[in-house]
């Protein structure tokens, strides 16, 4: 028997990770509340101040904020390296929060001067993050596929930032030779596919088997996923730097779609070999999220043929496409995985040193699973309701559905804060 070399003695700072997590949870509640208040704006053409503001609360205040926190927690654990600098992570947090708040307000007021300034601050925070994680990762001794995906996602985050700041400058003082709205598609797909989805996929290869106790599956498809998605993104990046659409658009889109499908096959292989047959709420969310990924991928292919679609129909499809990616695929997997990651983070911080000395709770005892199940049903029904509301242009359905999404985010927030506030137990396990 070989003794282990694994150290696991590099726990990331609870304070830093917790700060990002709590902000993200509040960001989600703020997002759903503002969606409810502005439900009548979730229609028509997507390039409008309120929708841009809401989208950036979702992508930055909720999704990217949680990824930042999760990376600070997971990179040291999964890759067995120490975070390069906690001070940088702290500075990044405040710059990001300040920049993002100003950026969202600038979008709502459509003040392009302030937008350029606040977007620069957000970009600075992201560059600090990229630097911090890169400096941590160059010390990795045993590389794995999750590390490769995360490193690649960092590269796409950098491209997203560059594209974003260029667009902010272009809004203030137009200089693009291509169409701003076409370039927006590149910015969005670099963010969605290159940054967020790449992180989700890479982390899934590690976390889903860990949580479902899967063994003996092949990770070969994950390498194909990587190749297809990068090839597709490369083609889209080149394509959107030219004013006219070419054959690169459908080919690039198809390559990404094939990559996504192979990823789903990879997830199927992992889940097929799982020991934990009963799915808990965290993994159930995760599986529904992948279903949403499938639907949005199909829609993405359909949208390649936009010039054949009637404008009113196209506007709705674009909104539904973005909505399913942000609130369906991304949000559902984040909510689900937070039911797995946050209990661990808090448990490790509060109870790790007490094991064997006094009774400690199990992770699932740190939140109310019944509430989580109710939240799951409400959130998914309301998501479907919102899609129907957009599709049929029905304002009443939109208000009711976004109201219920807000309600589900409050239940989620309640459960998350229960976890953060968990105290020890007095009588056994």
């Amino acid at each position, binding site marked *: *028997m070989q003794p282990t070399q694994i150290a696991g003695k590099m726990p990331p700072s609870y304070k830093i990770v917790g700060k990002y997590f709590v902000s993200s949870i509040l960001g989600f509640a703020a997002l759903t509340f503002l969606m409810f208040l502005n439900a009548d704006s979730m229609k028509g053409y997507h390039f409008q101040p309120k929708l841009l503001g809401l989208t950036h609360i979702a992508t930055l205040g909720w999704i990217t904020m949680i990824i930042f926190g999760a990376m600070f927690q997971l990179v040291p654990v999964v890759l067995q390296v120490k975070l390069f600098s906690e001070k940088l992570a702290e500075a990044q947090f405040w710059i990001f929060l300040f920049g993002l708040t100003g950026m969202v307000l600038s979008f709502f007021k459509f003040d392009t001067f302030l937008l350029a300034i606040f977007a620069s601050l957000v970009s600075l925070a992201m560059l600090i993050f990229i630097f911090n994680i890169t400096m941590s990762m160059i010390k990795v001794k045993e590389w794995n596929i999750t590390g490769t995906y995360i490193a690649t996602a960092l590269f796409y985050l950098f491209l997203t930032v560059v594209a974003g700041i260029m667009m902010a400058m272009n809004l203030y003082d137009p200089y693009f030779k291509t169409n701003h709205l076409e370039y927006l598609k590149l910015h969005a797909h670099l963010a969605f596919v290159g940054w967020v989805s790449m992180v989700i996929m890479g982390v899934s290869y590690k976390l889903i088997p860990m*949580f479902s106790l899967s063994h003996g599956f092949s990770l070969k498809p994950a390498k194909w996923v990587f190749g297809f998605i990068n090839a597709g993104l490369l083609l889209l990046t080149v394509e959107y730097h030219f004013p006219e659409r070419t054959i690169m658009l459908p080919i690039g889109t198809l390559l990404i779609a094939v990559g996504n499908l192979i990823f789903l096959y990879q997830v199927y292989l992992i889940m097929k070999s799982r020991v934990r*047959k009963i799915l808990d709420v965290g993994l159930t969310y995760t599986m529904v999220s992948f279903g949403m990924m499938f639907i949005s991928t199909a829609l993405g292919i359909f949208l390649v043929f936009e010039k054949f679609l009637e404008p009113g129909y196209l506007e709705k499809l674009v909104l539904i496409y973005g909505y399913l990616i942000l609130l369906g695929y991304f949000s559902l997997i984040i909510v689900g995985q937070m039911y797995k990651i946050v209990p661990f983070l808090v448990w490790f911080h509060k109870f*790790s040193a007490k094991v*064997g000395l006094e009774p400690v709770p199990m*992770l699932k005892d740190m939140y109310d699973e019944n509430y989580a199940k109710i939240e799951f049903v409400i959130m998914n029904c309301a998501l479907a309701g919102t899609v129907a509301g957009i599709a049929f242009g029905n304002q009443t359905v939109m208000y009711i559905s976004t109201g219920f999404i807000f309600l589900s985010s409050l239940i989620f927030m309640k459960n998350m804060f229960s976890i953060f506030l968990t105290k020890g137990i007095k009588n056994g396990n």
Partner: protein
Amino acid sequence: MVTEEQVMNTLRTVIDPEIGINIVDLGLVYDVIIEEAMITVTMTLTTPGCPMHGSITGWVENQVKALEPGYEVLVNLVWEPVWTPDKMSEEAKQELGQ
């Protein structure tokens, strides 16, 4: 003097906080050796790089020390042989829905 069986029984109180099943029924404990004033527990975890690694081994150490305070306790965490689901007890398998 403490017996190996007593050590195994006390290890049944060490529960994987994520799975909710004790490490003996999960098949994570490979061997217990008691010699002179030293108890060596050879064990593994379900996944290499498991973030619970430090907590579970610490728990084992504390639990065994509490059983026999005069003894040194060594937790030898190994990855060979690899843990496989067939190492679990029937009760554990049932609990996980198999």
